[in-house]
């Protein structure tokens, strides 16, 4: 019964998120309905937590149910009023049409239906395990759930807590943005007690969010059957699935990364400048909130997203899709979003002397060749069960189908994946972070975070190789 509080707790953030997205899209909506509700839930929850964080550090609220509700109601009222103010004056254009669905042969239909049932079975069982088994993995009881419980007990964004043992220290986890833990606090505050299943249930929502977002992104480019196959592809990655049904934050992070990058892809593949502009405004919002998810966002993902943004704006400008004014506006949107979210969070970190690395400080890393890393990475990537066949297939497709992967809009996904993947290898090869690869701790988690990007890239490439361009619906 406690789990019924999950939809109750997510209602206001989701509706507020939906309204926020509509306000950002303005007169040129580009998201599918399902996609808008999904993004509304994902970004709305993160935005609610960010506003709660701001109000809390400004001394306006405690991290109690009343405090959370106060912020959520205020946020909802604000976006509702804005929506009512603008909606009446807008001449809303229709959402771009989707590619036509193709008629599938009976064997393919049966195969797809079987795979969907199989995936559904795994998801249901995974959800049951997630909400009904005790804390097991390290970061659950030392970080995400522990901090959620701590915030709930102290009603504050407590950074230090008595660990009761002077030898084992928790240390670095306080440097993570508190979004995941605060969401757990908010949910369990509604239950008036710490409830393990309820605190964990939000992770399944994030897992579903990223699956749906992948579907919607693929659906804009291909028939529903292909898009469903893409969702199947992502859900069938063993380690990604494991993270989807474990209270860790990497799928949460993956969902936010995908939200930001898929909007950039939407901007490049859109049919009109207004639609591109809409996608880029949404991208700015998602990128801004990305900073408030995990530490990697600021150091690893943000630079690559900004690099791609420069590439996209140059491309749109060169092809006369965007004028100078639109380019400037887009840049200012991104700057504004990053400033609004990033500045308070970075100032907060500096004020409390919190490190910027992934629970490890990035300053003072010595550069030296690290033995054994290459072997560990090859084993983890190619000879374990983590990624099924994704990596060889994706790399093979990029090599064999360069036109489809690197000289089309898909390059947004392939470039992001390759830049991130290849870009982080030197960290393992040349710094003390090599232990993350040698012990197989941090390396694979990085891949979990960009797995949706990789799967989407793979399906876009394969679809464009196998299917001629499909006409849009009338």
């Amino acid at each position, binding site marked *: 019964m406690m789990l019924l509080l999950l939809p109750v707790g997510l209602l206001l953030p989701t509706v507020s998120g939906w309204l926020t997205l509509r306000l950002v899209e303005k007169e040129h909506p580009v998201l599918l309905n399902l996609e808008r509700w999904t993004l509304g839930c994902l970004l709305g929850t993160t935005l609610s937590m960010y506003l709660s964080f701001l109000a809390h550090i400004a001394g306006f609220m405690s991290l109690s149910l009343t405090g959370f509700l106060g912020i959520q109601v205020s946020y909802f009222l604000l976006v509702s009023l804005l929506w009512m103010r603008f909606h009446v004056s807008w001449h809303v254009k229709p959402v771009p049409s989707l590619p036509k669905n193709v008629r599938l042969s009976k064997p393919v239909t049966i195969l797809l239906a079987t795979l969907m049932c199989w995936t559904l079975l795994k998801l249901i*069982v995974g959800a049951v395990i997630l909400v009904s088994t*005790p804390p097991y993995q390290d970061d659950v009881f030392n970080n995400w759930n522990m901090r959620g419980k701590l915030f709930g*007990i102290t009603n504050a964004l407590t950074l230090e807590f008595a660990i009761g043992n002077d030898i084992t220290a928790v240390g670095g986890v306080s440097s993570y943005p508190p979004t995941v833990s605060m969401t757990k606090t908010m949910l369990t505050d509604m239950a008036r007690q710490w409830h393990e299943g309820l605190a964990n249930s939000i992770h399944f929502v994030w897992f579903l969010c990223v699956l749906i977002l992948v579907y919607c992104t693929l659906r804009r480019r291909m028939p529903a059957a292909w898009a469903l196959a893409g969702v199947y592809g992502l859900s069938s990655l*063993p380690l990604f*699935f494991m993270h989807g049904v*474990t209270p860790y934050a990497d799928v949460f992070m993956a969902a936010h990364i995908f939200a930001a990058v898929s909007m950039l892809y939407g901007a490049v593949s859109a049919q009109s400048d207004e639609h591109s502009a809409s996608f880029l405004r949404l991208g700015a919002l998602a990128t801004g909130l990305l900073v408030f998810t995990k530490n990697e966002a600021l150091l690893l993902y943000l630079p690559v997203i900004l690099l791609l943004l420069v590439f996209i704006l140059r491309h749109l400008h060169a092809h006369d899709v965007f004028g100078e004014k639109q380019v400037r506006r887009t840049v200012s949107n991104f700057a504004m979003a990053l400033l609004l979210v990033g500045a308070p969070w970075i100032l907060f970190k500096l004020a409390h002397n919190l490190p910027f690395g992934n629970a490890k400080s990035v300053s003072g890393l010595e550069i030296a060749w690290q033995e054994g890393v290459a072997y560990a990475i090859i084993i983890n990537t190619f000879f374990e069960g983590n990624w099924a*066949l994704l990596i*060889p297939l994706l790399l093979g497709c990029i090599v064999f189908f360069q036109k489809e992967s690197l000289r089309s809009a898909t390059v947004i996904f392939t470039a992001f994946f390759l830049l991130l993947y290849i870009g982080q290898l030197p960290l393992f090869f040349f710094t003390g972070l090599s232990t993350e690869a040698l012990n197989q701790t941090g390396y694979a988690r990085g891949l979990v975070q960009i797995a949706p990007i990789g799967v989407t890239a793979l399906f876009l490439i394969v679809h464009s190789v196998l299917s001629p361009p499909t006409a849009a619906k009338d």
Partner: protein
Amino acid sequence: MKRMYHASVNIRSLLIGTLFLGALAPSHANAMRSAEWSFAGETFESGWEVAGDPSLTSTPEGLRISTTVRSLFGRSVSTADPIDTISLDYKADDYIEAGIYWHEKGRDNDDLTKASLRLAPTNGVGSIYLDMTKYERWERRTDFIGIGLPADSELIINRLRVQGWNPVEKLLVALRSFWTFDSIRPSSINFLWGPHIAFTPIGREMMFKSTPPMEQSANRYFYIVMGIAVAWTVYGIKKYPARKKKAMSTLAGVMAALWITYDIRMGTEFLWNAKHDYDTYLSKPIGQRTFRERSFFTDFAAGAASLVQDRKEYVFLAPQRWPYLGLIRYYTYPIVPTEPEQDGTKDTWVVYKRPDVILNPKNQLESRGVVLTRPGGILHEFETGTFIFREQS
């Protein structure tokens, strides 16, 4: 992981004596490709030879071999039956850097090949399984096998068994090993071993019991099929350019089939683990349930949390810090666990699986003769060595 190396030695030429206590045949041959020699119950097996200067004594647990110099204990075996694995049941009090010796075809009779074998101390009679196919120079149809012992070592051999399988049997084992699942463990959040292929039943049984698994990753077979499919497609397109689309569709079909096979394997592993969680934890009442390798810690911690809730802190003792210290802190927070030597106001001791910690006649907690607490009483005992104790105020 054990490192393997080989060295050719002329130790067989040192043979100084032989034991001929009966016919050359093993006491009981198990099927066509299995031979077993038992030494338990003070029975000597026939056909064994010794080199060096070992002292041999029959005991109820097996044949005790004591050495003062490097020695070899071995025998001739039939070349008709190939050998893939060797199982040794033995008893040892200390580590022994031993070796497995065999004779390679075409070499001089005295020239034996050696692979190192580290025998760990055992509690009673223990076992070691050797998949000999892992050794590069292993001769499946060898005519001699032996165990080499270093000087000043002592070992009781309880039973020795050799087994071999034909190609069809190995293929069946390989197929079964693909569907052999690994359990969820703490490291599963960082990596999953995935399907592995073993060619012997022992290899399959031991597959996920070592880190990393000793057997081959099944991925290499997927890659072989993928490589062949890609090569075939490239060849087909070059030869019949007009059929490019069909060839590409076929290639995509092959890749999809491989992907789905992989997913069924890994998905089934997940469901198999979920069923295990259901059988051992979800379907069982509190007090009877266990969770993976953490046993009943969840229920213990929940019980402890209710008993320490009026305290500020407590002393926590467990077999090791990780993961129990973090877990108990999570369960009992804001009441925190401390170490016995830390200052504080703790009067409650939460003890998990520490049979060395006992209540002495003066009602004090004591470990190996050292008194830990003032007199008090046990608030709740879960099992021997697992309890909550509180000092008298």
